[in-house]
């Protein structure tokens, strides 16, 4: 959506993310990166390509397949003044180390009455769409966001990928940084690119948490996504525009902190809300955003009932035709928007 000028420096998401990490590692020698296959291999999803060569095996560290140990070590190292980045290869694996994340890392600062800091970043790939089946396709941002004490970041585009990574590393609190495999721009996985913002300036820059991005302004209906679903929403908005529906697309970018003002403002303007998510539909992100509006109906006048799209009560099936149904697609957003426009509340 940005117009390309001479100054534009287009990068893929994964490159932008690595650039952010690399610049922070240069600036601050307390920053180090650990995870499975993040060393020589450069990450199974190329999340660390070049870092091992640049910073050496002492700062870009291959770990055993022992995520609980890794997360616990991140806590200990952070408490002692280091600034670890710990990568979960797939966010699906949070289950093997969720205690360290939920009960230890997230709680130490609070439990210590502010005495102990946890300047660490947990990175993880997420998302489906390429038939990697039920245990390797999940988006589980809602689980992290539910737990007080974690900041949760999920950029939708290369520009934000770098700026939010730099903010994450500079933050003195634990930050969960999630990257969707289907927007990384890897040469081995199909990806969606609605050209939201592929311009990645070379100089370091950070993007504050808690500030939503208005991806597209519109008057008729607000569509909020996260990570890859922002890309899908942007594509849906283009189709909708052709059909005379002027959608506003909003990217909260960070779930914690959440830019509640921007969301309320947008829905107050359009009077209609669709929340699109690739995480499970119930008891999560789509519920929280819908509730935010439901709590503010004294200042937001809705024209239609809120509409939620997500992975509705099922695990991610392997077979492609089923996976396509389980995960909300661009057409589902288009259909939902048309239905919302056609409906009205009592």
């Amino acid at each position, binding site marked *: 959506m940005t117009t390309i000028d001479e100054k534009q420096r287009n990068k893929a998401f994964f490159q932008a993310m690595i650039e952010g990490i690399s610049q922070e590692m240069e600036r601050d020698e307390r920053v180090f990166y650990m995870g499975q296959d993040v060393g020589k*291999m450069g990450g199974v999803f190329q999340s660390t390509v070049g870092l091992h060569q640049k910073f050496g095996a002492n700062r870009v560290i291959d770990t055993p397949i022992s995520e609980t140990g890794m997360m616990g070590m991140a806590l200990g190292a952070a408490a002692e003044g280091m600034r670890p980045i710990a990568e979960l290869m797939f966010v699906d*694996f949070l289950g093997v180390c969720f205690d360290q994340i939920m009960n230890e890392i997230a709680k130490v600062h609070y439990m210590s009455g502010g005495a102990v800091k946890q300047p660490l970043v947990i990175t993880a790939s997420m998302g489906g769409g*390429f038939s*990697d089946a*039920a*245990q390797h396709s999940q988006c589980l941002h809602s689980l992290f966001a539910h737990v007080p004490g974690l900041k949760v970041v999920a950029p939708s585009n290369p520009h934000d990928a770098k700026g939010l990574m730099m903010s994450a590393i500079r933050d003195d609190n634990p930050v969960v940084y999630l990257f969707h495999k289907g927007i990384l721009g890897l040469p*081995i996985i199909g990806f969606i690119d609605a050209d939201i913002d592929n311009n990645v300036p070379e100089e370091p820059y950070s993007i504050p948490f808690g500030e939503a991005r208005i991806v597209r302004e519109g008057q008729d209906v607000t569509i909020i996504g996260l990570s890859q679903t922002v890309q899908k929403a942007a594509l849906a908005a283009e189709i909708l525009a052709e059909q005379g529906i002027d959608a506003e697309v909003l990217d909260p970018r960070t779930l914690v902190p959440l830019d509640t003002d921007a969301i309320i403002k947008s829905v107050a303007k359009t009077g209609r809300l669709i929340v699109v998510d690739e995480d499970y539909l119930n008891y999560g992100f789509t519920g929280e955003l819908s509730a935010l509006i439901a709590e503010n109906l004294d200042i937001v006048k809705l024209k239609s009932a809120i509409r939620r799209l997500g992975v509705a009560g099922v695990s991610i099936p392997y077979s*492609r035709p*089923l996976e396509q149904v389980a995960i909300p697609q661009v057409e589902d957003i288009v259909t939902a928007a048309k239905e919302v426009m056609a409906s009205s509340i009592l």
Partner: protein
Amino acid sequence: MSDLNAKKRWMYETMVLIREYEDFLAMAYFEDKLPPKIQKGLAFDIGAGPIPGEMHLSAGQEAAAVGVCAHLTKDDSVWGSHRSHHFAIAKGVDLDRMTAEIFGKVTGLCRGKGGHMHLFDLAVHYACTGIVGGGIPHACGAALAAKMRGEKSVAVAEFGDGAANEGSFHESLNYAGLWKLPVIFICQDNNYGISVAKSDSTAVESNALSRAAGYNMPGVQIDENDPLAMFEAFATAVDRARRGEGPTLIEMKVFRYYGHFQGDPETYRPKGEIETIREQDPIPNTAEKLMAEGILTTEQIAEISQKAKDRVMQAFTFAKESAYPDASETFQHVFTD
């Protein structure tokens, strides 16, 4: 033919079938995944083609599977990992339905819902999981069930060297040792967890030699990729388990002939390693031995090879020709009711 010789022959046949299957799949996997059929700019599209998603092949690890399964009955259970085709085949999982599953077809073991890391065949008590180390306690649970019911069946957990560093390994082995569960742990040491060599992930040389004692169970290390060595070691272990004397940890050196997943550039693999391990391939080695023992002839070896090829072709044809599940199945099977 003696019972033992019949088993040896079965092991050889099964190794050949597994190898044939994996080698065929290794290539079939790339169908429609390469330019120009895929998204512009991609060099390879993991999600494209008739066999989408990750693919972990077990070629080079057949010996472990056949040495174990030669001793198992249908009622014994096997709990595998992300790299488990060899055990599935050796345990007798229906090859047509397994292949259909890998193609995501409705005729698949899981009606297309599981995929290659999630093969379930209740008829032969076989299951696997994509979470490293995740399946190890499942075997303990099956063993516990057998023990509670006074049944003689055993359970097998099979996993890689990398999995032995997960907490689940430790907890499972402690349960097994403590409760003397009829379970056998098969650690397949292919020297890698994806790109990381065992020496960079594991504080000790051998899980069997250094860790089994920590759970009050025998640890057996098999230092050669040989089905007959596993056959022997497992015989002792399974007897022990069936007698109610408890678990055993068996570790075996195996080879990973392919990348961790298909498409893996394997830049971490030392030059010449593939050649070295290919030279030690247990299939021709076993063939030689069985010929020397008079169990197989050259003609029979050719026959076995042809039979395997035919069987694999039949399975892939079945899979290809099967239908995809109807979209409505997406919302089925969450709960039984």
